[in-house]
Structure formats: C-alpha cells, structure tokens
C-alpha cells in the first residue's frame, strides 16, 4: 500500500479550505464569548485582546448552568443505561423467535414501522397524557426517550443478534442455564460493539433534543441545556457575549467527549446508519 501513496496536494488543500467553513462559526462563537462589547466594536473577527472569562461566570449564574447541566446529564445517562438494558433484551426475544413465532414477527414490524411516524402526530396528545400521569419531569423524559428509541433500536439490534450463532446458547441450555441467565451472561456481553453504537446515538440525540423537553417539561428546575438557551433568549437580548458564553458552555460537554472518543463516535454513528 505505502509505496504508491503519492499525496494529492491540490485536493489536500481544498479539503483543508473546506474545514474553514465548518470552523468559522465555531471560531466566531468562541471569540465572541471571550470579548466584551468594546472589543467587538473594535474588531469583529480578531482574537480577543483581553480574555473576558467573566462572560462565562455570568452565563453560569444567569442561566443556572450547573442545574441545567445536571438535568441534561441525568436524563442522558439514565436514558443511555435504560435503553441499552431494555432495548437489547426486547430485541433479543424478538430476534431469536421471529422465525418460528408469528407473535414475535408481528412485534418486530410493530416496533420498526414506528420509525415512519413523525413526532408531531403524537405531540399534541402526548402532552395531555404525560400531564395526567405526572410525568412532566426528568423521569418522564427518560422513559419517553427510552420507549421511542425502541423503533430504531429493535431494527439495529435484531440485525446484529441474528448474526450471533445460536450454538452458544444451546450449549448454555444444556448446562442448565435459564433464558434469562443466558441473555445476561452470554449474549449481552457479545453485543458490546452494537451496544456502543446504540449508546452513542442515544447519547447524542437525548443530550441535544429540544422538542420533547420543550413540550413536556414545565418546571424551570427541570430544564435541560437546549431548553435553557431557548428560554433565556429574551434575557440574552443583545448581550451577545453572555449569550455565546452560554451556548459554548452548553455544547462543551459533548465537544469534550467528542475530542476523546472521536474514532468511536464516528464508527458508531456510521454503523448505526448503514444498518
């Protein structure tokens, strides 16, 4: 391979220039978050002459950042854990029985066909339902995210489970293991790669979700990070330095995770979408 890799410089330069289009808005966000209005009027595009970390301190205080962060982190973590444990189990029961049982075959199509249902069709009734069940809180958000994830995850998991040879389970059965024990001790560990994919996708979509918290959550103490940015638009008004500091803080946790787990995230998302 190595000997005929001649670097294609024109394309290399074009690819590099293209990244500027991706980075420019983020560069602007970062510099504005570190400037004050006076520096902005002197130079809109330049680096800050004096770094104003006060903007971040103010944003933390005004938006009650740590509370929103805690809410987002709780919902995201709980949803990821609950989704991995429950969705994989449901898909296992379906994947191992859909060939011989009409019931499980029917379940497969029941879950998977929901991928075509656009959220707005259930948006209006779900607000009434969650209110009557007292689910307008973080627990409600977690449950709804987990349940809605089933449609896509059953599809992804079943495809994977059917590629795992049944022989392993049969051996365990001979040794007297229950179906329950077989799943948790033998199959679930084997599903690690697909669990990583599902976990990453669920983490991204839950953390960044705006519409579901917007319609479900009414108590200000329960606001998640995207919701806080929406609610505080009025207060940010024309104080762009404060607003951008707040935006960056909200995006920071995911960016930090991305910096460390970039390779995982990219391959996980690819595998999930190509399924």
């Amino acid at each position: 391979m190595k000997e005929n890799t001649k670097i294609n410089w024109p394309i290399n330069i074009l690819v590099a220039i293209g990244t500027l289009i991706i980075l420019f808005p983020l560069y602007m966000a970062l510099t504005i978050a570190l400037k004050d209005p006076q520096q902005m009027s002197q130079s809109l595009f330049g680096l800050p002459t004096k770094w104003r970390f006060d903007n971040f301190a103010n944003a933390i205080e005004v938006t009650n950042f740590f509370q929103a962060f805690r809410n987002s982190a709780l919902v995201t973590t709980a949803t990821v854990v609950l989704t991995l444990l429950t969705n994989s189990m449901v898909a296992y029961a379906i994947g191992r029985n859909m060939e011989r049982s009409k019931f499980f075959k029917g379940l497969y199509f029941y879950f998977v066909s929901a991928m075509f249902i656009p959220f707005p069709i259930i948006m209006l009734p779900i607000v009434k339902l969650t209110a009557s069940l007292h689910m307008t809180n973080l627990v409600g958000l977690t449950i709804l995210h987990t349940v809605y994830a089933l449609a896509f995850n059953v599809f992804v998991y079943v495809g994977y489970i059917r590629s795992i040879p049944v022989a392993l389970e049969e051996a365990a059965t001979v040794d007297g293991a229950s179906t329950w024990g077989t799943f948790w001790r033998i199959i679930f560990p084997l599903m690690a790669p697909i669990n990583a994919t599902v976990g990453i996708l669920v983490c991204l979509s839950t953390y960044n979700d705006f519409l579901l918290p917007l319609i479900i959550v009414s108590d200000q103490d329960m606001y998640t990070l995207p919701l806080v940015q929406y609610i505080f638009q009025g207060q940010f008004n024309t104080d762009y330095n404060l607003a951008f500091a707040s935006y960056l803080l909200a995006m920071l946790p995911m960016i930090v995770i991305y910096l460390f787990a970039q390779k995982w995230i990219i391959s996980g998302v690819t595998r999930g979408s190509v399924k």
Partner: protein
Amino acid sequence: MSKRMSTYYWMTIPAVLLFFLFLTLPAIQGVYYSFTNYNGFGKTYDFIWFRNYINLFTDNVVGDAYWFTIKFAVVVTIFVNVFSLLIALGLNASIKFRNFFRGIYFLPNILSVLIVGYIFNYLFSNVFTVWGQSLGINALSTNILGNENLAWIGVVIVAVWQSIALNTILYLAGLQTISKDMYEASSLDGAGKWREFWSITFPLIAPFFTINMVLAMKNALMVFDQIVALTNGGPGRATQSISFLIYTGGFEGGEFAYQSANSVIYFIVIAVISILQIRFLQRREMDM
C-alpha cells in the same frame, strides 16, 4: 407453554405495553381528535368528521407551510448530497491528516441543532451583513433572515452546514468499501476521472446514496429546531414549517383538533415520500 418461551414473552411484554401507551395510543388519539372541533383545553367538543380535512385543503396558511417545507427539503437534500459526496471524495483521496479533517467535518453532527441555529442567527445579522456591505453585494448587506423572499435560503444554509457532517461520513464509509483493483483496471483502459466516477465509483456506492437521500430528506421534512432559532416562522409566515405550524397552532392557537388533522396528512406525506424514494432508488441500484 414452556418456561423458556414464557421468559421470552416476559422480556417483551412490558416494552409492548409502554410502546402502546406512549406511541400507538397518542397516535390513535390524534386521529380521533382530528374528526372533532376540540380546542385542546375545553371540556366538550363535537364531531365534525371531515370538516377539518376539507378546511386544510383550502387553508393558505397550511398550503404555504407545505410549500415551504417541501421546497426546503428538496433543496437541502440536493445540496447536502452534492457537498457530502465531494467532501467524502476529497477525504478518500491520498491526503495528509485525513483523520484530523474527517474529525472536523463530522463535528457539526454532535452539536445541538438549536444552538447552531442561534449562532448562525447572529452571523446572519451581524457578520454576513458586514461582508455584504464591504463587498457591495446588495442581497447580503441586509439580514437575509429578515427578508421575506430570502429567509428560507438562510434556513437552508444552516441545515446544509450541519447535515453535511453525517452524510459525508456515510459516503466515506461507502467509498472505503471499493477496492483499489477496480480503479487500476479502469486506468489501464485509459478512462478519465470523470468517467471513472460515473461508471465505477457512483454505481458501487449506490446503496449509500439511497440511505443518504432518504435520511437527508426525512430530517429536512421534520425541520423544527432551526426555525425556532432562526426565524420563528417569519418574516410573516415565510418560513413556517409543517411541524412548527402544528406546534404553534396546536399549543398556542387553540387549534388542537385542526392541527391533529394536519399532522395526519403530514404523516401520510412523509410515509409516501419515504416509500417512493426507497422504491425508486433501490430500482436504480439494481439497474447499475
């Protein structure tokens, strides 16, 4: 029933019940309310059967929302796929720092759509206008989000900027499935780059083209967060998407039943477009 089978049933039944309660039931309720004149908060309502549906088809507000959403989705799908494919081809060429560049192109995918919208909102009003003025381009020297005829293009730009990330990575995954031998055979035949792309590369990544077209189209048809962050449906109703209209009309406008009918139509539109797309693109895959 054997103990083994009953365990399998117990693994699924709680999920089925919850799925029915939180997805199927609300969907049925939505269809039910669409035949009434329920306003969302009152105690009583009457059945008006298909009146909501008949009104939908003569309502300009609804018509405009469909026109905006479909126009937006088609344009976004085309641009996203063209740019993603070009970037993926670039990343797949023999270049230095490929993983670094790939990491940057994928970055927008992990960011909140709403917050990206807010950042661009500022850029449109305070940065692009400065460029427009200094370059003497009239269309850019005022905020295009405030222009009734151009605002939709602003939303397109933001959606394309962010959606490219996922589609690029998927095209790149497709390109990496093609072995080098295929190209070597063709360069011996003296085929140019352009012909090489259309007769070798593109047919081989056809399944990825299908996925990307369907994903981009479906996401664009659901556009909501960008509208909230950029235009709030304005100026006037120029950028009111279908899901935004269902949200504002249903929750704030007292049109619970009417917007339920709208969402039933919306569901049918999305399902039909997705199925047609998959059918058409898969037939093309076969031909190639």
